[in-house]
């Protein structure tokens, strides 16, 4: 089983801890992980802002970077959804515009092997108890693309529930968007901020010590709002909680 980590541009540049957590976790579960250096970004920021043609080289790059692997695992529901939902669309449109079927072929190769982390753990490795220990109260925010585009369902929850010492606190209005939305956060800053503030109010209301998601981009928005409000609640990627053990606490 040749497994590659697609760390994503946001994690590479801003949240390398999450990438390290995924590597630690997968290696503990006996998976040999590779990191193809040719990878960069899935292209979602460009695509969702209306720059489809600018995304095309990144579709080709993704296909090329991961050509030698059976599985691509990414700690981002949003980026996995970009590959799975939008790469085929980008390929179809390129073909419809008379630019051949190469992009569609590249997209078709990428889709079946791309897994968001919790999907890979539950569906491919068949584990929900990853041997983690995290003696803190945690609330979980299911991010929109993980929830609705990928349909992660209760996979992240089941993984969290199996963590020893962890107390899971229900998040009211959990399925409501946090307001990040990529460039939406800048283009419609006022609405984005209002959504973020409401989400943070719900999070702090749980009294949990940490909030976790499967997407650091949403967490950047939530964490930035928590920080501005001087909150003690720690924003953590789910992978960091799963990487934590009694012998080697992650945080």
């Amino acid at each position, binding site marked *: 089983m040749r497994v590659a980590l697609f760390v994503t541009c946001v994690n590479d540049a801003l949240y390398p801890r999450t990438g390290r957590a995924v590597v630690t976790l997968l290696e503990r579960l006996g998976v040999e992980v590779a990191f193809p250096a040719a990878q960069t970004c899935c292209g979602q920021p460009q695509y969702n802002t209306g720059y489809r043609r600018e995304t095309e080289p*990144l579709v080709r790059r993704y296909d090329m970077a991961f050509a030698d692997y059976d599985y691509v695992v990414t700690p981002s529901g949003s980026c996995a959804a970009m590959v799975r939902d939008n790469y085929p669309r980008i390929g179809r449109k390129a073909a419809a515009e008379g630019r051949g079927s190469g992009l569609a072929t590249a997209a078709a190769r990428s889709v079946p092997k791309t897994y968001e982390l919790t999907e890979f753990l539950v569906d491919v490795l068949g584990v929900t108890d990853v041997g983690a220990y995290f003696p803190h109260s945690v609330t979980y925010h299911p991010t929109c693309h993980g929830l609705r585009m990928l349909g992660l369902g209760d996979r992240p929850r089941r993984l969290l529930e199996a963590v020893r010492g962890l107390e899971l606190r229900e998040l009211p209005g959990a399925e409501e968007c946090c307001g990040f939305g990529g460039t939406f956060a800048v283009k419609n800053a006022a609405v984005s901020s209002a959504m973020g503030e409401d989400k943070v109010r719900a999070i702090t209301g749980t009294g949990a010590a940490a909030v976790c998601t499967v997407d650091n981009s949403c967490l950047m928005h939530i964490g930035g709002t928590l920080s501005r409000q001087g909150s003690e609640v720690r924003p953590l990627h789910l992978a960091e909680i799963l990487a934590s053990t009694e012998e080697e606490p992650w945080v």
Partner: protein
Amino acid sequence: MSGTFVGMPSFPVAAGVAVTDERLRGNLRRATHTIRDKRAVAVGELADWGALREAGKEIKDRTLRGLDGYLVELEAAVTAAGGVVHWASDADEANRIVVDLVRATGEREVVKVKSMATQEIGLNEALEAAGIAAFETDLAELIVQLGEDRPSHILVPAIHRNREEIREIFVRTMSEWGRPAPEGLTDSPAELAEAARVHLREKFLRAKVGISGANFMVAETGTLVVVESEGNGRMCLTLPETLISVVGIEKVVPSWRDLEVFLQTLPRSSTAERMNPYTSMWTGVTDGDGPEAFHLVLLDNGRTATLGDEVGRQALRCIRCSACLNVCPVYERAGGHAYGSVYPGPIGAILSPQLRGIRSEVDASLPFASSLCGACYEVCPVAIDIPEVLVHLRERVVEQGGKGHRLEKAAMKAAGWVLNHPGALGAGERLASKTRKGHPKKLPGPGGRQWGQSRDLPQLPAEPFRDWWKKNRA
């Protein structure tokens, strides 16, 4: 569309003002959450919801594929039943047709059934300009009309108002339009409804002309259908001597049997009712019963152009249930007026720029008025992939260029080059990490300022992931 909205500011500007209105935010939050929770229960009762949703989508798509044929069939059936069909290519033509029809009756006032199509074309304003008074008879539309306000929701046009505000509007303005509000009116829902009932009753009994839209038109029989909760629509449809229905061409369904699907999905999606309280159906004219003259104005107004767009055409499946508004986190904060259209919320964000084009500032901003969270697609009873259409329309706006997009395009191109050269990307990340001590918490420039409005930027790590990997694993 309605002249009322011409010159609206772009969505971020209007929404930026709306989010600061605490009362509006409270009204919207309370109302949308109540409806959405009830809808979830009503939908959850049906074991075959998924199949109904798929069936609704299929019926609409099949109809849209053969729209020209079904409209001709409809015209023949309406004519055979004693009705008169008029074709209107745009708002001006539709308004002219209706004004001429009303003038021909010699009447100076009409009663109206709640209708999105007539709002879309600004019919009330056109009638007023022709010296004809149009009275809205739907309770919420009445509140909007009396308050000299604009509707802000497809189904609940006065959703932005609370009970105290409605009482104040009734007391202040009812007398100018007809029967005044009763003495000592309180803000209890029963008293407010009774005041409206008495006020409207006079108008129903006096009116000689009724104007409606329709939720559906059945091609095979020429039957029009209106579903409603109050019964006011039925009064307008049956009491006047002349009935004029203005309906978008996409509202046709091939057969009577197709209604079965929508009469289940529409009420549950919109008002969370298992069945809507009033379903009125009319086919041409009938001797000694109902209106003596019936006119159907078939409205295009951008629909054929929308149909020509492979991705965007799915917006024409919309049955105006407004479920997408009630789950939309952006609508909940910004309110309906910020969308600058009679179609607010997620469906408005894809429908208005297609019906009106993207030349105006507000229309060019609408495809960006979404965080693409997907909640709208999830609840849509005819499975319109609103996020897909939003992104599709963003592309069109970007291609058009204009304010801000030229600079953005250059930035996207530069980013594209870096992202296609992993060496350059790694070097950039390394440089950023090395200089992180000197980074401010807030970025300069408009983007940075907007981000810093309520959020701190994350602190850069000591080294990017790819460098850690190189040192520790490679």
